[in-house]
């Protein structure tokens, strides 16, 4: 079943030096329960697409349908609630002056989820679900490690009971050992809650291990869309091959695969 459908999605920014086509005529479907990776370098339009999906940026033309309902940038709380975001930088995404519990609770208050008296209990449960002790809720973000902060961000998104999570480079600011733990957590949560992920990243090695399908973007255009196994065994677009060719590798098997794919043999 298609959960999210992008149809001819286009975003043009007017600038003093003329129009900039950030996203040009993108159409793709996201299936319920899948993890779709959106891959591209800076200027590929991947963040612009995410912002349109999240409803914080209006499309110039084209439409976004979620669960067969067309969405505009002005959305009802009910529509908004089901699409949530986890950002790249766990330091800036949590308000330094509020306790992490207050940040996680925001969605419960905005969408009026559960009884008021039970909301702190719900916050603790949300923290527990991402592997953090519930009594941590009174702490300030500054006293947490990068990995813990990113878990709080995930808990905040999950507290809204979403169906689709937009993960915008969720692990690029983390150390590799922490990244591994957070990726495993995201995998578990997807299975447990039947979530759908849009995983935005520049890191193809991460994509290979977490995504079901991959959409490759270059200068606002969708240049390749395919199953992850296909992208990493027989990439079609030259740009995809170029991206794979630039991935830093750590073992001989990877080196062989990379060189083979980059040459396009």
């Amino acid at each position, binding site marked *: 079943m298609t959960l999210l459908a992008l149809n001819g999605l286009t975003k043009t920014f007017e600038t003093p030096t003329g129009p900039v086509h950030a996203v040009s005529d993108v159409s793709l479907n996201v299936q319920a329960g899948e993890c779709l990776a959106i891959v591209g370098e800076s200027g590929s339009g991947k963040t612009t697409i995410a912002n349109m999906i*999240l*409803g*914080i940026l209006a499309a110039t033309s084209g439409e976004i349908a979620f669960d067969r309902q067309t969405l505009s940038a002005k*959305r009802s*709380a009910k529509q*908004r*609630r089901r699409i*949530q*975001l986890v*950002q790249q*930088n766990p330091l*800036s*995404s*949590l*308000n*330094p*002056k*509020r306790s992490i519990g207050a*940040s996680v609770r*925001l*969605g419960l208050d*905005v*969408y009026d989820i559960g009884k008021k008296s039970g909301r702190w209990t719900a916050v603790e449960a949300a923290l527990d679900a991402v592997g953090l002790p519930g009594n941590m809720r009174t702490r300030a973000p500054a006293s947490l490690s990068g990995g813990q902060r990113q878990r709080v*961000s995930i808990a*905040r998104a999950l507290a*809204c009971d979403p169906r689709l999570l937009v993960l915008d480079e969720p692990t690029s600011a983390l150390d590799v050992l922490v990244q591994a733990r957070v990726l495993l957590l995201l995998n578990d949560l997807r299975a447990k809650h039947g979530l759908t992920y849009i995983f935005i990243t520049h890191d193809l090695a991460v994509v290979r291990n977490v995504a079901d399908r991959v959409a490759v973007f270059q200068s606002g255009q969708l240049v390749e869309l395919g199953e992850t196994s296909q992208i990493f065994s027989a990439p079609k677009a030259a740009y995809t091959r170029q991206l794979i060719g630039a991935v830093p590798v750590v073992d001989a098997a990877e080196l062989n695969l990379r060189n083979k794919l980059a040459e396009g043999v």
Partner: protein
Amino acid sequence: MIRTLRILAANPLSLLGLTLVILITLAAIFAPWIAPFPTHNGAVVDFLNNNRPPSSHNWMGTDLVGRDIFSRILFAYQISLTLGVVVLAIAVPIGTMIGLLAGYIGGWLEMVLMRIVDVFLSIPPLVLAIAMMGVLEPTLTNAMLAVTAMWWPWYARLVYSIARGEREEGYVLAAEVIGAGAGHIAFREILPNCLPAIITKMTLDMGFVIIIASSLSFLGLGVQPPTADLGSMVAEGARYLPDSWWLTVFPGLAILVAVFGFNLLGDGLRDVLGVDE
């Protein structure tokens, strides 16, 4: 709070500032009880003892009509501090509100509000106050009104510049994605991040408000006699310099000490709260 005070106390200059501010505040509050001549705040005349230099009886001497200068300074602090607190209590919320609206909401609101602020900021504060006091009657209330009118734009500017920066932070985006209202984002998310700077500026400004208020009454536009006020005391005594130096030097020192205290404390708070100006 306690942690803030502890770090503050570790710096000798900040500690001095804090001590001065506490002493002045206590002196002002308890003036009627600790002043040697509590009645000298008002219209008291004692020509037998007028214009006396400092002595063990009158520590800072007496004025032209024989009132104890030390007592009058304690009462004058009451006026200065009240004025400062009232001015800031009105100017800070107004300025903060306007700064937050302009900084977070942006668009045409930002344009309109900040141009108004610019107009106010382009007029030298004392000139604006003098102009207002020229039109209005010179009373304490009007003095407060005049000083308030020129004070809020500074807070609008300060809060605006911080809010502009905070608007781009990830936590604001997070709240917007969740669908929190503009009121929640401005007051619950952004405002707490402006507070350290606001508190620091308020402390520094207490000193400035005292100077401006004193300047107004020095010019005869503020608090009117016989009420004790530091500015008018300096003005009255200025004609008798250098012979009757105590008439001006002690009220002048009193202004200096208050301003100095609030500035040291403000600087200390700025370091502790991590505010960059």
